[in-house]
């Protein structure tokens, strides 16, 4: 063993039992960052200690969506390369004191981090927080593999659109191949009126193809865009239906049974969906 750098992938020495949830999609722009920010915030509002990690190195924006951009000093690459301590890179949210963010590096690229770096980072965080929520970049390249390497649970975000569903299917195949699953599904930007008119894929069509557990349906909601721009997670808005949907998903991730929301415009939708949902109704 001539001086080989020890690069163990082993997580068995992990100190805490914090759980790692990775949010991914395959296709870009379907709502991964929105989901990461909101599920992180909702879990923190439930009283859990949460750290979100922006895994989109080079294209960071989770900090913007969470409204923490102006407080960044260190980023995830600084932690991994040892330029700062873990705690120094964890930015604490002022509204939700149990919510932290480790931002991505803006000036580096994805090869600055390897999957085993992410495993080590996550293992260190498991001792500090209850949930680690990782925002994956789009695609199936290194950044995606970095994001899923430490995952205990994987949430796939898709839109009710043929191309997004096709990419989700590809991602699920890769996750299954790595024996990382079972992945859970969130269908985002659902427009019940369009589904009713037959102009949009219905959730049951998506589920029939993807054949994984559904943990959330999020309606199209313009409040989401306003809240991303103002850096205030939509889950903090009691009136928003998308906010409600994300709060429900967070509860389901935390092991609670929450009935699926009525998608209002279509009474039949929930009934038809019934057969796909294991529990909660």
């Amino acid at each position, binding site marked *: *063993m*001539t*001086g*080989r*750098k020890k*690069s163990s*992938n082993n997580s068995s020495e992990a100190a805490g039992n914090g759980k790692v949830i990775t949010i991914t999609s395959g296709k870009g722009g379907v709502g991964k960052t929105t989901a990461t920010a909101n599920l992180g915030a909702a879990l923190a509002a439930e009283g859990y200690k949460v750290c979100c990690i922006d895994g989109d190195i080079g294209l960071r924006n989770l900090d913007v969506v969470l409204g923490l951009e102006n407080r960044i000093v260190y980023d995830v690459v600084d932690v991994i390369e040892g330029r700062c301590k873990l705690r120094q890179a964890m930015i604490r949210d002022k509204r939700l004191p149990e919510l932290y963010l480790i931002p991505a590096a803006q000036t580096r690229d994805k*090869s600055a981090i*390897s*999957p*085993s*770096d992410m495993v080590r980072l996550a293992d260190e965080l498991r001792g500090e927080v209850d949930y680690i929520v990782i925002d994956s970049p789009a695609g*199936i390249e*290194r950044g995606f*593999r970095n994001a899923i*390497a430490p995952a205990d649970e994987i949430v796939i975000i898709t839109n009710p659109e043929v191309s997004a569903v*096709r*990419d989700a*299917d*590809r991602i*699920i*195949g*890769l996750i*299954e*191949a*790595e*024996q990382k699953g079972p992945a859970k599904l969130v269908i985002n930007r659902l427009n019940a009126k369009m589904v009713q008119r037959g102009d949009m894929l219905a959730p049951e069509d998506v589920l029939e*193809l993807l*054949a994984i557990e559904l943990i959330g349906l999020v309606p199209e909601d313009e409040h989401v865009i306003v809240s991303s721009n103002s850096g205030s997670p939509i889950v903090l808005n009691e009136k928003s239906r998308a906010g409600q949907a994300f709060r429900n998903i967070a509860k389901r991730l935390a092991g609670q049974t929450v009935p699926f929301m009525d998608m209002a415009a279509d009474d039949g939708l929930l009934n038809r969906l019934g057969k796909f949902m294991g529990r909660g109704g």
Partner: protein
Amino acid sequence: MRPTVQIKGIREGLLVTLGEGMWSDVQTALLQEVAEKASFFRGAKLILDVENHILNAATLGKLRDLLADFDLSLWAVLSHSPTTEQTAQMLGLATRIHQGKPEDSPEPANEAGLEGADGLLVRRTLRSGNSIDFPGHVTVIGDVNPGAEIIAGGDVVVWGRLRGLVHAGAEGDTSAVVCALDLSPTQLRIAGEIALTPPDRKQPRPEKAFLRDGQVVAEAWSLPGNEN
């Protein structure tokens, strides 16, 4: 004794051929080699010829992640084992390189000498991006989703929904057939003929597609004498 690790530069990247031995020893030998020549390997695209090693996804995925620590990207895996080839395909790795393959390692004369090579049983759903390329017959227990493809020298039987691309008799066998419980492929080919799927029917039924007078036709797939 350290298992052998041979390295050769080819057009696509570095071709690394792994020798016999316990997989854990072979993997250690490879990583040692990589660590010792770190600057030579840095940033390289790796084509790994694992010969007869039978590898599952967890093993191969782990190796790929370990190699990433050395800034090496695993691009293709070549193997004599159909299991390993399938694993590599599931992980999205290439399993064939078209050019620059050195003459001294002959094309593995498709599974010659491997037992049971004329049939392949796939017991899972093929998802988008999965591809099966097999010289004999292929049976799938599961669905074939849009974006997945099966290319078979012989017949293709799908015990599930067939919605991807399928090519039976890919080497010219005009007697090849394609059967599925729900036959709605994006594209279906038998030998040299192509059929596009007719707009979907309300009630899927088991069907068999074959060539009749050089045209692809589909009929109900049922017990003989029990048709329609």
